């Protein structure tokens, strides 16, 4: 016996009748939660109340960005949420462009939207993989990450890095031009992704649907009240998409439609993702047909950090990333570094108010299904 005094059975006080509730930690050191924890107050199998416990991935991005030049911030911005690094690059690059008033060349804007949509595609594949893992459907998880790797091969080919594009979409355009032969590489990537989407349809068998239907139902007015955006809001029936309402880059020249569902439960959120993947493929096809020629970055050379100046001003840029509405408020007072950067990640609202609202009164067995149907990413919540 260890020499420390160990608690024998007599010291464990028996639970009295009314005190049948106990705390149940879902995360952070847990195979189903990523680095984010939820403290559940549980009575048997039923969750009485949930309290989010964030902060495990808090790196203080907003403070870090105040000490770096925009080019360095671009490299930093893809770590805001590595599951869709290029989307976050785009949000940051647009904020700086709007402040500096640079006219981004046409070809760079097309490449930017091309990479953002490919990043949305692979982010949705991760989402499908992780929710099928949460429901215990192991094949879906393994295949989704297998097919996502094909998208990463394209990122490796174009940006030089598989997961970390290192600020590929940077203020002023993109860092490199597209290498030779990117067209047919992307075309056969779209073929492979379509192959995976057929498999997703084949795999939506009764057991998968039965686990997700009617689970974590979110009504429209609750979604609006709690600040849900993106697929979570569209699953409740609200037809809104920042790419259409607050069009940025070249989204107003592309035609794609906004899928919506009505029930607002975990299964509806899964259906939304499948339809959004089809739309993304449609967008990528249109871009490949109309890719213009020309420069890829406004100031060809990177200006040395000492001589960088951002004109005085403030700007609020909103983008539609895979998880919802991502926004950056950037304030500059004319120096090289931004004076204040406020990053608004969609998961900040999905993981604390929406998750706590949905987990109330659910079953323990449904917690991972609800949790991962919101496609949460602790990185852009903690920042």
């Amino acid at each position, binding site marked *: 016996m260890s020499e420390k005094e160990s608690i024998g059975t007599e010291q464990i006080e028996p639970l009295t009748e009314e005190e049948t509730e106990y705390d149940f930690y879902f995360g952070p050191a847990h195979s189903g939660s990523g680095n984010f924890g939820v403290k559940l107050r549980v009575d048997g199998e039923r969750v009485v109340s949930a309290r989010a416990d964030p902060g495990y991935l808090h790196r203080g991005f907003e403070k870090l960005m105040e000490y770096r030049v925009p080019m360095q911030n671009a490299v930093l911005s893809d770590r805001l949420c590595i599951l869709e690094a290029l989307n976050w690059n785009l949000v940051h690059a647009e904020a700086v462009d709007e402040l500096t008033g640079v006219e981004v060349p046409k070809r760079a804007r097309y490449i930017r939207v091309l990479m953002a949509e490919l990043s949305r595609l692979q982010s949705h594949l991760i989402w499908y993989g992780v929710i099928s893992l949460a429901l215990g459907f192991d094949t879906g998880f393994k295949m989704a990450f297998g097919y996502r790797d094909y998208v990463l*091969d394209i990122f*490796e080919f174009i940006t030089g890095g598989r997961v970390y594009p290192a600020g590929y979409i940077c203020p002023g355009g993109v860092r490199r031009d597209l290498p030779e032969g990117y067209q047919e590489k992307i075309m056969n990537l779209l073929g492979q992704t379509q192959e995976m989407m057929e498999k997703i349809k084949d795999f939506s068998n009764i057991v998968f649907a039965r686990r997700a239907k009617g689970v974590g139902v979110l009504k429209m007015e609750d979604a609006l009240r709690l600040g849900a955006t993106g697929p979570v809001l569209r699953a409740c029936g609200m037809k809104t998409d920042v790419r259409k309402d607050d069009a940025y880059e070249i989204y107003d020249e592309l035609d794609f439609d906004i899928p919506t569902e009505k029930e607002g439960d975990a299964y509806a959120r899964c259906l939304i993702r499948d339809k959004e993947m089809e739309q993304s493929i449609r967008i990528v096809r249109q871009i490949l047909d109309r890719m213009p020629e020309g420069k890829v970055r406004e100031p060809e050379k990177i200006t040395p950090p000492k001589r960088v100046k951002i004109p005085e001003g403030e700007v609020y840029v909103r983008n539609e990333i895979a998880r919802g509405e991502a926004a950056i408020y950037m304030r500059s007072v004319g120096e090289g570094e931004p004076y204040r950067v406020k990053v608004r990640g969609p998961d900040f609202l999905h993981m604390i108010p929406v998750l706590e609202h949905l987990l109330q009164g659910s079953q323990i067995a449904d917690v991972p299904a609800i949790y991962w149907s919101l496609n949460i990413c602790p990185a852009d919540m903690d920042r």
Partner: protein
Amino acid sequence: MSMVTTVGVLFKTLFSKPMTVRFPYEAIEIPEGYRGEHELDIDRCVSCNLCAEICPNKAIEMVEMPEEHKQKYPKTYPRIDLRKCCFCALCQDICPRRCLTMTKNVFLSTPDPSAVIKNPMPREGGQ
């Protein structure tokens, strides 16, 4: 019934080639322009210190050459600490003479800590 299609897909995949690659024996070819280990062409370096300034993690530091090369390379040259580097290639893009470039070598794990500090070496000395 959808369960039949699921099982059908499984058996089709069972007899088709797996997607995974057995890494040490077969490997996916790394494309050009991959951001791997640095390579410094010391003769063309004018030690303008731009790479040290732009590096977001301060991984690059300008250092004197060791005694035996001092008279041939009097100026200061970039020394890269690979543990701090995030392989963003900003140093490669900003270098006016394009003498600090990134190779495709990403197999950098090494037990001995000193191998991670890449000191500037003359070409014929070799990395």
